[in-house]
């Protein structure tokens, strides 16, 4: 019953926070114009709401207003009212001084046939089923990254204020002694990836150890699929080839093709459900916002509508406060798309610039830019700007993990079927006149720049782990694959009255081969990712031990735990909320080997606690409690005069230094 109640509360709060504000904002911006389809309104509402909630909480936090259910709800209502009034004024001014012929243009009628609709349902059910079965084994709060993120989200919830992203560390002082430093700023986290979780927890009183963080990320992940679908559907009109079957190359079939390639296939591996269970929060948000931003810019340029440009600016600005890497990737994609468009349309470059200038010089985009500048310089900078993290991402690659992936690695990370079809699609698009269209420029810009960033990052002076960039590639390759698949299908069928190009048996054989290849590759990938068994018992014991320590925690206690053999240890810090570095942690052994300059105390204090070096670390850092898995690390603390075993469970022992 408790789970049912908690899940219903979560659903209601999520709806109120992350759909309603965006929906009203869209209504305020677009009025009664029917330029957005229902699916587009649905997906855009979610993106707008995330941006709105993040900016609202940043403003409240900087103004010194404590986050409470009341302050958040009043803030949402007040901001919606003011934005609605303001947007109405802007629309009035726009109508009067910047009349647009496009006003009131009806949206494309995307009516599905019965068969298409049922196929959509089937693919959607399959997508949900595969992801949910996987997540049912991963819904426990065990993932390290999610634990790190939820520490900050819980800190915001508990304190009602914006956090200062900093942590202590073990340093060697001038006298050669080890000590715990004062908290130092860290650039790994960005406020916008934590505020949505905090908002849910503040208003719904949701427990961070419940399924809510994973389910919310799952929602973002599924909506990123819908963002890809609405973008792909809009590409149909520009990418339609007159000689191919018009009835087959339809937005509906493109939507089905995209859903097939992003839904049931490859639905578990990175960046899909695995990112959800792994708590890769920023990337998951980034993968939702990037197609949404490209959708907005695409519609702005093709339909010459400044409102969409304003929408694109708002989403871009919102993403900048959520995830740095996604923002960087997006900037590269936009620059590449713009350059390709100019290159392919070199003869009309002057007209292009005039059209872009007219689009930009309109009230809505200018107001969003003004809001962004005011917010950026007057209210809050993204933390990665404050900590100069950008400098560490730009430059000649410094490690072998940053010098690029091989083609085989890309095939593995993006999926064989998507890479094969995607490459065919890129080649086809480059050879067709369609490359000159905005659809061609966006698709080619998106995929080619990510291919370059993944294969040869040095060419672009990027110093970022290549496998992280590689996870972004599956999206453009998937979209191009979806288009290529429908192009190929449409090429088999001529319009009514025309002679058939290929015999039906050959068409059937191709369909079957393509289906088996894509399904086989995609489902093999899913099979590789499924988790073998539940970690419930081990996790429960970790949390029980953490609760015991938290109940008896003294300000002088310094706790050290092991990250190698304790399940869900990253979540222990949520029981204390003392510091991001508390309890101290013995990290993966490889990290100490790879980086000799890394402090060694956390390793020595567990691995060799009774050696002179280990003793020195204990004495100088003040560490007095150690939490280990007895199957791997118990022996070195067993009987003697130095250690007391104060707690014992099957997978956890707690030792206190005398």
């Amino acid at each position, binding site marked *: 019953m408790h789970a049912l109640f908690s899940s219903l509360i979560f659903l209601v709060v999520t709806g109120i926070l992350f759909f309603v504000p965006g929906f009203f904002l869209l209504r305020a911006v677009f009025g009664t114009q029917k330029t957005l389809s229902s699916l587009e309104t649905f997906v855009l509402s979610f993106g707008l709401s995330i941006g709105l909630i993040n900016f609202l909480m940043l403003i409240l936090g900087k103004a010194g207003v404590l986050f409470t259910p009341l302050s958040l709800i009043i803030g949402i209502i007040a901001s919606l009212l003011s934005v609605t009034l303001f947007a109405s004024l802007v629309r009035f001014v726009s109508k009067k001084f910047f009349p647009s012929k496009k006003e009131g243009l009806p949206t494309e009628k995307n009516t599905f046939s019965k068969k298409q609709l049922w196929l959509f349902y089937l693919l959607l059910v399959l997508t*949900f089923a595969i992801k949910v079965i996987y997540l049912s084994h991963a*819904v426990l709060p065990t993932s390290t990254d999610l634990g790190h993120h939820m520490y900050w989200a819980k800190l915001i919830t508990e304190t009602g204020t914006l956090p200062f992203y900093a942590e202590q560390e073990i340093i060697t002082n001038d006298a050669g002694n080890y000590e715990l430093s004062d908290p130092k700023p860290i650039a790994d986290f960005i406020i916008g990836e934590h505020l949505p979780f905090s908002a849910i927890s503040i208003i719904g009183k949701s427990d961070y150890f419940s399924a809510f963080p994973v389910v919310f990320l799952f929602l973002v992940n599924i909506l990123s699929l819908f963002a890809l679908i609405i973008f792909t559907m809009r590409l149909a009109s520009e990418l339609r080839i007159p000689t191919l079957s018009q009835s087959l190359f339809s937005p509906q079939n493109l939507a089905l093709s995209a859903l097939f390639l992003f839904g049931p296939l490859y639905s578990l591996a990175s960046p899909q459900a695995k990112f959800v269970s792994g708590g890769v929060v920023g990337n998951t948000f980034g993968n939702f916002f990037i197609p949404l931003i490209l959708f907005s810019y695409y519609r702005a340029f093709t339909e010459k509508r400044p409102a969409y440009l304003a929408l694109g600016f708002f989403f871009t600005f919102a993403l900048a406060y959520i995830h740095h890497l996604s923002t960087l990737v997006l900037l590269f994609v936009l620059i590449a798309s713009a350059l390709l468009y100019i290159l392919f349309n070199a003869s009309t470059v002057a007209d292009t610039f005039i059209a872009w200038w007219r689009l930009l010089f309109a009230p809505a985009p200018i107001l969003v830019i003004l809001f962004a500048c005011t917010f950026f310089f007057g209210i809050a900078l993204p933390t990665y700007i404050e900590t100069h993290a950008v400098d560490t991402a730009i430059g000649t690659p410094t490690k072998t993990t940053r010098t690029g992936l091989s083609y085989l690695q890309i095939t593995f990370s993006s999926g064989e079927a998507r890479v094969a079809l995607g490459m065919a699609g890129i080649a086809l698009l480059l050879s067709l006149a369609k490359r000159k269209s905005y659809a061609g420029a966006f698709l080619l810009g998106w995929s080619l720049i990510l291919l370059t960033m993944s294969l040869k990052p040095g060419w672009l002076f990027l110093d970022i782990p290549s496998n992280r960039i590689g996870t972004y590639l599956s999206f453009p390759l998937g979209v191009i694959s979806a288009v290529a698949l429908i192009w190929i299908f449409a090429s088999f069928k001529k319009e009514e009255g025309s002679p058939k190009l290929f015999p039906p048996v050959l068409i059937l054989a191709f369909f079957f081969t393509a289906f088996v290849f894509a399904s086989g590759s995609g489902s093999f990938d899913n099979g590789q990712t499924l988790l073998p068994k539940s970690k419930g018992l081990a996790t*429960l014991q970790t949390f029980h031990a953490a609760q015991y320590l938290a109940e008896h925690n003294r300000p002088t206690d310094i706790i050290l735990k092991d990250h190698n053999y304790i399940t869900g240890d990253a979540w222990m810090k949520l029981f204390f909320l003392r510091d991001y570095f508390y309890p101290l942690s013995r990290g993966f052994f490889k990290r100490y080997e790879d980086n000799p300059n890394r402090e060694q105390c956390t390793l020595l204090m567990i691995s060799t606690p009774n050696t002179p070096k280990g003793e020195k670390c204990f004495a100088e850092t003040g560490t007095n409690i150690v939490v280990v898995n007895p199957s791997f690390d118990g022996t070195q603390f067993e009987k003697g005069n130095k250690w007391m075993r104060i707690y014992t469970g099957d997978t956890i022992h707690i030792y206190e230094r005398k």
Partner: protein
Amino acid sequence: MNANKYMLTDQRKIILAFFVLFIFSTIFLFWQNEQELDPNKNKSWWTLSFTNPNDETDTDFTIENYGISRSFTYQIENDKKILSEGNLTLNIGEKQTIDTSLDQARINTNVPLSIRVSSGEEKKEIYR
């Protein structure tokens, strides 16, 4: 009033399908999480700990039982002497603190004082 405005178009049907699927998925995942984090559900384990770890002279200890076995026996030993022993029964989900009330004069503080608890074939020990 335009009746078509509120018509269930194909895209609205898809959104409805999404919501239905998402609601069921959410309820299932919350339920699954609760089952996994329920210490009594399909799991068998117990813990032994000092009740007051911050007081080195306090030997009271706590047993929390989430296991199938319900009977526990304990022994408090110091310097190869049994200072106290006893039995207790703990139901699943039950927690009990044992007040040892040891005579401090009988304890040799130069050697560890051990508390050993066994239940079925499992044994656990804490010491200080």
